[in-house]
Structures are given as C-alpha cells and as structure tokens.
C-alpha cells in the first residue's frame, strides 16, 4: 500500500481533468447522436434537485468532481503496483466500466430519490426511468459506450500519470 503522500498531486489533478473531459465528451456525444440516453450528470443532478435546468448544472459539477475522485483512486492504484501506462489504464477503465454497469447503476436506481423502480413503483417523486440491466433501458449501445468511455478515461490517466 503506497502512502497517500506518494501520489503526484499535480499529475492526478491535471490528467484527471483531461480524462474526465474526454470521457464526458464521448458519453455526451453518444447522447447527441442518439446512441444512448444514459447521462450520469443528469442522474447525479436529479438526485440533488428536481429542477431540470439546475439538475444538469449541479450534475455536471458532481460528475467532474467524481472524475477527480476516481483519478485519485487510479493514481493510488498506479503507485501501488509501481507502474502506469495507456494499456494498463485502459484495462482498469474497462474494469471500472463493468463495475459501473453491473454494480453502480443498480445501486443508484435503489438509492436515487427520484428514480422509479420495480420495488417503489412510479410515484410523484420517483419518476425517472430506471436504467435496467447494465443500463440497457437507456439504449442497447449503452454498455458498449460506457466501456469505451471508461477505457479512454483510464488510458488517458495511465498515459498521463506514467509520464515522468
């Protein structure tokens, strides 16, 4: 286990931002192209507020923060194994994507205060479409796009953190 002080703060902040921006561009771009309707910023934002416009803004802020949090975990992982690189980062990203689809989304559906589920049904407050298995409710390409986005995120972090 590496000490937290071993993490290069500047590199994880800079490359965490770059990776998050690249990943969000892929995910948001896929929405604009009608390949998938999954929007993590929207889901994060609506967990905080039921005002549509505010939800998008708040959600995007939370999403960027989340990108840094995960960048920190990636950096910690790279320090722990003593190496970093594009392919290693991409592999971690794919793993991360699979976790998002299989663990995080079902969990989010349960804890999200505005998401309808089979358990809660559709109510005045719980009115968001649930993601379903691996986010497939938001489009059949959702798992693939999520994996690609996360792989790119990991690859950029692996590349950036590996520099120097």
């Amino acid at each position, binding site marked *: 286990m590496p000490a937290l002080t071993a993490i290069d703060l500047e590199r994880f902040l800079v490359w965490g931002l770059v990776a998050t921006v690249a990943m969000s561009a892929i995910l948001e771009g896929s*929405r*604009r192209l*009608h390949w998938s*309707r*999954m*929007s993590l910023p*929207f*889901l994060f934002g*609506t967990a905080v507020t*039921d*005002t*549509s416009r505010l*939800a998008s803004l708040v959600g995007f802020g939370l999403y960027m923060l989340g990108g840094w949090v995960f960048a920190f975990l990636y950096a910690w992982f790279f320090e722990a194994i003593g190496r970093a690189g594009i392919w290693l980062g991409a592999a971690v990203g794919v793993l991360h994507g699979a976790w998002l689809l299989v663990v995080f989304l079902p969990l989010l559906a349960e804890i999200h205060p*505005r998401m*309808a*589920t*089979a358990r809660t*049904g*559709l*109510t*005045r407050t719980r*009115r*968001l*479409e*649930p*993601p*379903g298995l691996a986010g497939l*409710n*938001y*489009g059949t390409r959702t798992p693939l796009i999520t994996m690609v986005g996360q792989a790119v995120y990991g690859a950029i972090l692996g590349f950036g953190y590996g520099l120097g």
Partner: protein
Amino acid sequence: MTAIDDRTEAEAAARAALSPERADYPPIGAYGLVGDGRSCALVGRDGSIDWLCWPDFHSPSLFAALLDRRRGGRFRVGPVAPARRIVRRYLPGTAVLETVFTTDDGVVRLLDFMAIRENVALEPLRELVRIVEATEGAPEVAAIFAPRPDYAGASAAIGDRSGVALSCVTGEGAAHLVTDFPLAPGEVGARTGRLRLQAGERRAFSLTFSGDDPGVLAPVEEADATLARTCAYWRGWSGRCAYRGRHREAVVRAAITLELLTFAPSGALLAAATAGLPEAIGGALNWDYRYCWLRDAALVLRAFSDLGYQEEATRFIDWLLHTTRLSAPALKPVYDVYGRLDLGERTLDHLEGYRGSRPVRVGNAARGQVQLDVYGTVVMAAFDFVERGGTLDTDACSYLAGFAEVVCRQWREPDDGIWEVRGPRRRHTHSALMCWTALDRLIALADRGVLAIDRERAAATRAEIRNAIETQAFDPDMQAYSGLMDAPALDASLLVMARTHFHAPREPRLSRTHERLRRELGAGPLMRRYDARFDSPAQDEATFCICAFWEIEYLARRGEAARAERQFEAMLGHANDLGLFAEETDAATGEARGNFPQAFVHAGLVNAALWIERARATGAEREGR
C-alpha cells in the same frame, strides 16, 4: 370492474384492430387536433391516434395509421361495443378534445390532450394524456398501443421498464407509456387490453417522450392535475382573444388551431399538421406540409395581431425576419421551423398512403421554386406589424430595405406563382401584384423614416408594375384580371387585390373580376383556385377553402356585410364537427382534402370574421345606429 387479461383475447383484439378488414380510412376531416406548441397528434372519431410525430412536428412519426392503416401504427382507446352515437367537442376555450361514445353497454367519455408544462420541475419533455371514463352504464373499453417508430420503418419492439412503464425506442429518443389500464402483449409491437368500467370509474394513459436523457415519466395519478393545468392555460390564452363578434366560437377555435400549429421555440407557423395527405384521392400530389410557407406570413400576422395576440405576432415576425436571412437577399417559398432550407424530400415507399394515394412524401423540395409573391407577403407582414405598434430593429430594417432592390430587378421574371404550378415558369399577375405591394409598403415605411431605400427607383418601378397589371393583365374579353400576365385565365388569388390596396374594393375592374370568379369558379360558398386556362387542374380537383375566405373578406371590405356573413356561415358548415378545415373541400361530397388542419385557411377565417365585424360596425354607423 372486470379485467380481461386473457392472452388469447388480447391477441384477438390486437389482430382485430390491425387486420386488413379494418383497413378502411376515415375521412380526412374526421380527425381532431391536440398539441403543445412543439408537436401534435390527430385523434380519430373512433378514439384512435393515427398521427403523432415526436419530439417535434417535423420529426418522424410514432403513429401513422393515417397513411397506412395496417402498417402505420396507432394508439386507440374506445368502447368495445359499436358506438350508436359519437359526439366530439373541445372543452370550451381549450385544446382538450372530448369524445363521447354512446353504446348499448353505456357511455364512454375520452379526453385527449397534450400537457402544457412550465419546464421548471422534473417533468417529461412531451406528454400526451388520455383519460377514459364510464359516465353511464358499465361499458367495456379496449385499448391498443401499437407504436411504429420512424414512419413505421424501424423496429416496433416494446420494452418493459421494471414494471413502471412500457417503452418504445425511436430514432430520436424513446416513448414511454404509463397507465393503470391492463395491457398485455398482443401481436408483435402491440399491447392490448380490455376492461369493463363501472359508471364514474376512470383510467388514464400518459405517453411521454424523452430525447437525450433518461426518461422522466408521469404517474397517472397526476393526470387530473395535468388536465386542470392544461385547461387553465388554454382558457387563459383564449380569454385574451379580442374578437367579440357573433362568431367568437369559430374564431377562437381558429386561433387555438393557429397556436397549436406554431412551433413555440422559434415562433414559426407550420402550413399544416400532417404529411402525405392527398389533394386528390389516389393521386400523387401528397406533400409534407410540416414546414413554413412565407405566403402565409401577412395573413397570419394580421390574424394574431388583430385578435390581440401581439406577443404571438412579435414572435412570428421575429422568426420571419431572422430565420429567412439564411437565404438573403433572396427569399425561398418554404423554410423549416428553424429557417433551414434543406428539407430533404424523400418518399416512404413502404407506406401505402391515404386510401392508396402514393407516394407518401416527407421533407419538401419546394426550395427550388421561385415565387416572387413572397417578397410582398413578408414586407406586408412587417408593415402591418409596424402599423400595429411593433418596432423593427436596425438589422431587420436593413434586411427589408434590401428587398426593394431584389423586387425592382426581378418583378418582370416568370415564376412558379402562389399555386406552385408545375411546368414552365410563367408571369403571374398575383406575383406582380405582390411585388407592387412590396414596393408600396417599403415606400410607406421609408416615408415614415423606419428604413431607407432608393425611393425614386422604387416609386418608378411601382408605377411600372401597376401599368403592366392594368395593360397586360386585365383582359377586355373576360372583363376581368387574368391570373397570367400574357394570357387569359381566372385566378382566385387576385381577390386579395383589395387587401393590398392596389385597388379600392369597389373599383369597377376589381368588381367585375370578382363577379367573373364567382360565376366561373364558385360552388356554393366554396371556390376553386383557378380555371383550366391557368393550369390543367386534376380531374377531380377540389375547391380551396382559402379562396372562399378571401372572397368573404373582399365582400366585407366592399361593405357587403350581410352577404359576407351568409357566405361565412355557409363556410363554417364545411368545417368538421370540431371547426377544423383542411386545405381543400370537395364541393360535390363535402369531404376534406389535402393536409389537415391547414393554418392558412384558419388565418383566412379569422381575417374574414374580423372584416365582417368591421363592415357591420361601419354599416351601423352609416345608418346612425
């Protein structure tokens, strides 16, 4: 309440609803319109939504049984037993459609509307609400939900969203159905169900659309609150209508129809709600009217302004003057709601078309046409706007002033004319008249200091156009103005001559032209658009409703209020039971033809009604009352 969820029965119901035996098409005029200012749906007398394009008017359809009964897709809610009587109306002052079916089992009331929302809270992008209730007896109600996305060209699979909604993926998002009505899988791509309701019992359907985001659904418990909010919105809107004459109900309905056909985000007004409905049954003239024709501009602006809808008029003129700059200084006949010109016409060969009227076209290739009259309609709309207290910004004034040069240069050239006649271009009198109007109003605006033009040149050209119309277009043998500058032919569009102030309404040449048009093109209160010398009309070409309203307005401008009113009331008899008009009416059968409902006609109705009131008031004044 008895829920019949037996799979075999559900499948049988689905087959019955989609089978070739039911491949009969209702009359075009049998539909009601509901909408939310961004999209709209047509609801048949049987409770079937046969046309819905989402998310916007010009998007591909989700239901298009209007154009193919078997393949197009529909969403029907109605009684199982045959209806002995069907009565429809809009709830007063609203766009909420009520259909009451009387059957041997009881009475079923169906409410259809698109929700008006404020886009503040977490609400669906679009929502179509259907509320069905038994008001008497214990009628059995059937429902079939059979979406066919992308004009029935895409997969029609319906997915279950964790038991809270049924969803259907479209090319631009997904549609979600939430209901407390039991629906079971029927044929591929359909959910069907039956339910016996007791008097007072009701069920609701909420069909929503999500574009790029996860769907926001609407619980059916909210349906009544949504209905109340939507009614309140429309009653507030229609309550602003300044017309207080004796035809208020028809005028308010026409105004609401115009508002339903206005694309709220840009202020653009669609020509009609549909695509592909035929001008002649079985014919090939099946165009997509979900676009904005500039020829409608002046008529629409006056209708909104004079009814007191200044905000709507301002929105429309903003759209008109800003979006048409994409083609400046030339104007094209048709634009989309955002002012784009590339409307990508294509045919949908997999659809059989309304009563076999093929091909079904979507998109529109009219941009290739030249219609010189559009300069006059745009300038006249801007002039009317200024005259009614509106102000134009510097850019708009400079843009309008640029038309003077275009008109002076081009007015002699042949064009396709207001009727978009196929074949070689010709010199149309109506186009020349509207070029004269453009210069006349530009000179008036210049004289008021609103804009700057080469006044001398504009005035000289205006005089030249007047001279050309008087010497080349007036045919001594016909004793009427011809629709063509170089040959005799009758054209009802010249009835707008008084409105343009080219002539006073009682000017002898114009009066004689009107008499001739009435005699040769009139059919009761209706009127054909032109005679065979103008263009070879289709064998069974119907009458054009706008021509009838032009005539009524002309009569009212002449001060013939009583005659105008008689014809107006006779024309109202040619609307459907909800007060809606298509582009054309078959004089022999009374059936509506062409796309439906058509904005131009409803704007014509409003202007005619306003002029009748003015004529009556003037007549009353003259008689000292």
